[in-house]
C-alpha cells in the first residue's frame, strides 16, 4: 500500500498525461477510498462532543466517495475538466485523509476541544443552519467591497496616471501619497465618522482607500518609468498629448497597474473586517466579529472559508483579465 501511494504521489505529473487514455483513474479510486474512510469514521465512531450534522457530513463524504468512484472510470471522457481533475488527483486523496483525521481529532476523540476547534461536521452544521444569514452577509459584503474596490481603483488609477504624467501634480501629490500610504485603514476611522454622512459611506471609503493607494502608487511609478523614446516616436508620428497618455503611457504602464490591482485586492479584503466594524448590521466582517464575541468559532471558521474562497475567486478573475489585456507580454516575462 505505502509503495503504491508513493508511486501515486511521485508520479502525479506523468500520470496525469498518460492516464486519460488508459481506462481507470487510479488516483480517483484512492480518493474514493479516503473519502469513504472519512464517511465511515464519522458515522461509525460516537461523538465525544456534540456538533450536529454528523449523519449529514457522513452522507456528504460518502457522496464524494461515490463521485470519485464514478469519475475513476469516466474521467477520461470529460476532456479539459477531466484533465484538471486528474491533475489534482493527489489533492483529492489527501483531502479525504485530512477530513478523516480532522473528524477524529475533534468530534470523535475531543483532543482539540470545543469551542476553539471545530470538526468539518461543525462547519457543515453552520452552513446548513445559518445559510440564510451567511448569504445576506455575503450580499452586504459584496456591495461594500464592490463599491469600495471599484471606486478606489478608479480614483487610484486616474490619480496615478496624473501623478506619473504631470510634474506639477507629482510635486504636490507624491509627498501626500507617501504620507497617507502607510497609515493603517483603522487609523482613519475617527475622521471618517466626522466626514461621511453615514457609517456605510465611511466603510466604502476605507475599502476604497485600501485598494486605491497601491494602484495609485504603482500606476504613477509605471507611467513615470515609460521609455522616453516611445513618446518621441509617437510625437514624430503626429500624436497629441491625449494620444500620448491614452495610447502610450497607459498601455506601457499596464503591467505595473496590475501589480497594484493585485495588491489592492488583497488589502481591500484585509480591511473589510475593519470597515464592517463601523456599525454594520450585516456582512462577513460583521459576522466574524459577532461570532468571535460569542465564542462561536465554528461560525467564524465557516465565514472565513467563504471569504477565502471569494477572494481566491476574485484573484483568479483578475488573472484572467490581466492575461487578456497583457497577452503581448507572453514570451517577454
Amino acid at each position: 500500500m505505502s509503495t503504491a501511494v508513493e508511486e501515486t504521489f511521485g508520479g502525479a505529473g506523468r500520470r496525469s498525461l498518460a492516464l486519460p487514455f488508459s481506462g481507470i483513474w487510479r488516483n480517483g479510486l484512492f480518493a474514493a477510498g479516503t473519502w469513504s474512510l472519512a464517511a465511515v469514521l464519522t458515522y461509525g465512531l460516537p461523538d465525544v462532543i456534540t456538533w450536529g450534522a454528523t449523519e449529514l457530513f457522513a452522507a456528504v463524504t460518502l457522496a464524494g466517495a461515490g463521485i470519485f468512484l464514478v469519475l475513476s472510470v469516466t474521467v477520461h471522457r470529460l476532456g479539459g475538466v477531466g484533465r484538471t481533475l486528474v491533475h489534482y488527483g493527489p489533492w483529492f486523496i489527501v483531502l479525504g485523509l485530512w477530513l478523516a483525521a480532522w473528524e477524529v481529532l475533534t468530534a470523535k476523540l475531543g483532543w482539540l476541544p470545543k469551542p476553539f476547534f471545530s470538526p468539518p461536521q461543525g462547519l457543515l452544521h453552520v452552513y446548513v443552519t445559518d445559510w440564510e444569514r451567511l448569504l445576506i452577509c455575503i450580499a452586504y459584503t459584496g456591495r461594500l467591497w464592490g463599491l469600495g474596490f471599484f471606486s478606489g481603483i478608479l480614483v487610484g488609477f486616474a490619480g496615478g496616471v496624473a501623478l506619473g504624467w504631470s510634474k506639477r501634480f507629482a510635486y504636490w501629490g507624491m509627498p501626500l501619497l507617501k504620507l497617507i500610504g502607510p497609515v493603517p485603514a483603522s487609523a482613519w476611522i475617527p475622521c471618517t465618522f466626522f466626514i461621511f454622512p453615514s457609517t456605510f459611506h465611511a466603510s466604502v471609503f476605507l475599502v476604497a482607500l485600501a485598494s486605491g493607494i497601491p494602484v495609485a502608487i504603482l500606476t504613477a511609478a509605471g507611467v513615470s518609468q515609460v521609455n522616453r523614446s516611445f513618446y518621441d516616436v509617437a510625437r514624430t508620428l503626429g500624436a497629441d498629448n491625449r494620444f500620448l497618455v491614452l495610447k502610450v503611457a497607459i498601455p506601457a504602464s499596464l503591467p505595473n497597474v496590475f501589480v497594484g490591482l493585485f495588491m489592492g485586492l488583497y488589502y481591500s479584503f484585509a480591511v473589510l473586517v475593519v470597515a464592517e466594524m463601523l456599525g454594520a448590521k450585516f456582512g462577513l466582517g460583521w459576522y466574524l466579529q459577532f461570532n468571535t464575541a460569542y465564542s462561536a468559532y465554528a461560525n467564524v471558521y465557516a465565514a472565513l472559508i467563504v471569504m477565502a474562497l471569494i477572494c481566491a475567486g476574485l484573484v483568479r478573475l483578475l488573472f484572467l483579465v490581466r492575461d487578456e489585456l497583457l497577452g503581448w507580454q507572453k514570451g517577454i516575462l
Partner: protein
Amino acid sequence: MALALAEAPAASIALDVEGVSHRYELDGKELKVLDNVSLTIAPGEFVALLGPSGCGKSTLLRLAAGLETPTTGRVLEDGRPVTAPNPDRILVFQDATLFPWRTVRGNIATGLEARGLIREREYRIDEVLELVKLEGFADFYPHQLSGGMAQRAALARALVNDPKLLLLDEPFGKLDSLTRLRMQNELLDLWKSAGFTALLVTHDVEEALLLADRVIVLSDRPAAIVAEVRVDRPHPRRRDDASLIALRRSLLETLGIAHDV
C-alpha cells in the same frame, strides 16, 4: 482618388540648417553638442552625416524632427521654421522602438490613428507591409520579431505616413552585417520609389558611401562640419568600386583613423 494619392510619389522637402548651435544642461554643467552647423539639403536628396559616436549627430536629427528647438540658429523646412514634430518628418531610431503592446499592424497604424486618418488610409498598412516584406507578420508582437524584422516594421511605421523627410538615426547599427547589407539595399529602393528626402546618421563610412548623394563629416563634440563629399556614382554601387575606395580612404583620414585601414 485615394489610390492616386498612394501611387503618386510622396513629395519631398528641402531642409535648411542655419548656424545651429545646441547645448544641453547636465547636472548644472553645460554640454555643448553642436557648434554653428549650417547645411542645405535639396528636396529628394540622400545625405549622410558621418561622425564619431556621441558627437551630436543624433541631436541634429532631433532638431530636424522638431523634438527640440536649437539654442541658437534656425532649422527650416521649405523655408518655414521647424517648431514641433510633424509626421511629414519622421525619425527612425537605432532601436526599432516598436510599441511592445501593439502588433506589427498596430504599430504601423499608430501614425494614422494619431492623426485620425485610420479609416481612409487603412489599406496603406498592407501596402507598406508588402513594401518591407512583412506581409506574413502583421499580427506578430514585437518580441516575436528578429532585429532586422523589427527595424523593417519601424521603417514601415514611418513610411505609412508618406513622410517628406525621413530622418534615420543609425537605423542599422544594431543589426548583424548580412542583415545590414540587405536592409541598406531595401532602404535605397524605398528612397528611389517613394522620393522622400533622406538624412542618415551613421558612423559606418561604407554605409554612407553606398547610400548617400552627399556625405557630411562632423567633428567630435561639439560637432562642427569638417568636410563634405559628393558621391557621384550611380546606384547600385559596389563596395569594391575604385572611386568609392578612394573616397573611403580620404574620409577615414578626415576622421583621423587613416593608417593601415
